[in-house]
């Protein structure tokens, strides 16, 4: 029995080595770059999160958990507001982006003429520089009568008597941040869905049409199940994106009033590049990473993609 096992093991190992040999030319260039410029920096961040780091002298002093403690004992509770806002951002923007992206992609895909106009039109926000989008939104949400939103609400629709200081209040500020996120990312989701829809065989639609399926039935029964892996891809991206929200906050509210619109990434940026507290910034980075990892694992369970992933091809 053990003889057979030994023999089998030997054969398996030989096969594995063969596969490794054939795989190396394919994966090595990427792996080297990732190791030097992505994985090593990550390990560095872990180390710095337990230390005090002085960038000029490049000195690392071990501190233990001090950075983490000082983050959680901050007087203004900024870390808690940041976590709350990240979760709210994810819960509010991700479903909107996925729904709108899938809907637009499906509608456009069913058009006979003019696909390009809509595709490019909805994609424009994605290819617009974040900095510029931020400026435009800042201008639109201006607190005075010069802002487009206030002008429409007060001067045109007369919904409110006073001009709203959008970016200076907790919830209106958060609203502007969410809106900008939805506006900026819907086109991206749409494009991914369109690429996926192109992969769905036309025979399926035709067969469904022959059987008298309505547009909704086609969408619900054919498109949505086949788009499940794509939705997973979009969802993971949006979720990770939600915990990487940064530029909106920096450009629109700077986390004000008093950190109530802040997010983890803005907090991290503020600690690292305004206050040069790289240790605390790294600790915030660690907290963010762990949160995202946990969420993604949960999602993975939910979608049961793990089992499909383990099937070997060839």
């Amino acid at each position, binding site marked *: 029995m053990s003889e057979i096992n030994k023999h089998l093991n030997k054969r398996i190992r030989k096969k*594995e080595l063969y*596969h490794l040999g*054939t*795989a190396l030319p*394919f*994966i090595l*260039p*990427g*792996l080297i*770059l*990732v190791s030097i*410029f*992505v994985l*090593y*920096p990550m390990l560095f961040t872990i180390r*710095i999160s337990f230390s005090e780091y002085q960038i000029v002298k490049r000195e690392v002093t071990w501190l233990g958990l001090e950075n983490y403690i000082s983050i959680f004992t901050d007087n203004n509770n900024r870390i808690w507001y940041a976590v709350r806002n990240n979760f709210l951002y994810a819960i509010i923007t991700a479903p909107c982006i996925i729904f709108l992206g899938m809907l637009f992609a499906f509608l456009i895909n069913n*058009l006979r*003429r*003019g696909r*390009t106009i*809509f595709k*490019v*039109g909805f*994609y*424009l926000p994605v*290819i*617009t*520089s*974040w*900095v*510029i989008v931020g*400026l*435009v939104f800042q*201008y*639109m949400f*201006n607190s005075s*009568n*010069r802002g*487009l939103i206030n*002008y429409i609400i007060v001067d045109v629709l007369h919904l409110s008597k006073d001009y709203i200081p959008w970016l200076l209040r907790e919830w209106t500020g958060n609203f502007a941040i969410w809106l900008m996120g939805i*506006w900026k990312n819907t086109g991206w989701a749409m*494009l*991914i869905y369109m*690429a996926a829809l*192109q*992969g769905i*065989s*036309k025979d399926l639609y035709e067969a469904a049409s022959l059987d008298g399926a309505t547009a909704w039935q086609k969408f619900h029964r054919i498109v949505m199940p086949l788009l499940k*892996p794509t939705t997973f*891809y979009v969802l993971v991206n949006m979720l*990770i994106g939600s915990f*990487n929200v940064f530029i909106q906050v920096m450009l629109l509210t700077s986390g004000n009033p008093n950190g109530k619109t802040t997010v983890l990434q803005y907090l*991290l940026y503020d600690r690292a590049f305004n206050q040069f507290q790289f240790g605390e910034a*790294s600790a915030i*980075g660690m907290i*963010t*990473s762990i949160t995202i990892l946990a969420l*993604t694992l949960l999602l993975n369970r939910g979608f049961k993609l793990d089992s499909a992933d383990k099937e070997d*091809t*060839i």
Partner: protein
Amino acid sequence: MKYKSKKLSEWTMQILLWILLLIALAVFSIPYIFMISNSFEQFSFSLPYPPRMIPKEFIFDAYQYILSLDIFSTALWNSILNTILTVAIQVVIATLSAYGFARIPFPGRELIFKLYLFTLMVPGFLNIIPQFITLSNMKLPIESLQGGLVGTRAGLILIYVSTGVCGYTFFLRGFFRGLPDALSESVIIDGGTHRTIFTKIMLPLSKPALGTMTLFALQGIWEEYFTAKVLLGSNEAMITLPMLLQRLNGQHATRWEWVFAASIITQIPIILLFILFQKKVVIGGLAEGSIKE
């Protein structure tokens, strides 16, 4: 009769679709229209009231001013070079990696791939500090490169390519796995190698996915600001378009028409590329018709 009514309902359906999409697009375009119309304004230290969605007259002064700047042509050239070089290298490396992960069951595949996925979840911009240090340690025996690769185009592109590998590998791997196995199996049966499968089957079938990836990569690098700012710093000769936009914004907070004009000029090439690409790339079913049943 039945045929006619079916055709008619098809028409109303199309018109309904158009109306629905037009309304959605109109709402989506508000910020864009706002930006374009304001690039034709002439701000004199205050914003106009009421806010304008359509410019009173088309004044091109802001565009002329931006195009006449010397630093604008420098930034344009740098952005073009950085973007093209980065994306070209990225496409090659990511395609190779994705194939390896999708089709060759080498030992450690799951582990490395999970590691790649993990890096995608970690907030990227803390990495800039160790990346900066690593680049500064990469010293070459050349007089002008005393600071290592910091402040150089090569250094910036190296970081851009590296940080893109994981994401694009993930994206393309998913696509490769979606391609029918039957094709590659037939190659194996005929005694072909992975190289044959890769170049003769995967690459031709992957044009839409590669196009999509190229598009994302082009747009991402073209607008990238933070990494360029940190790695290139004050090196005036290396300034990129987003760096220039930010500088315009900082210097002339009240001259919004300059900022908006410059940003529209910056975006035109990307918009044009997108229109061209999407026509060529995303046509028809991906693997449709490549297998005869």
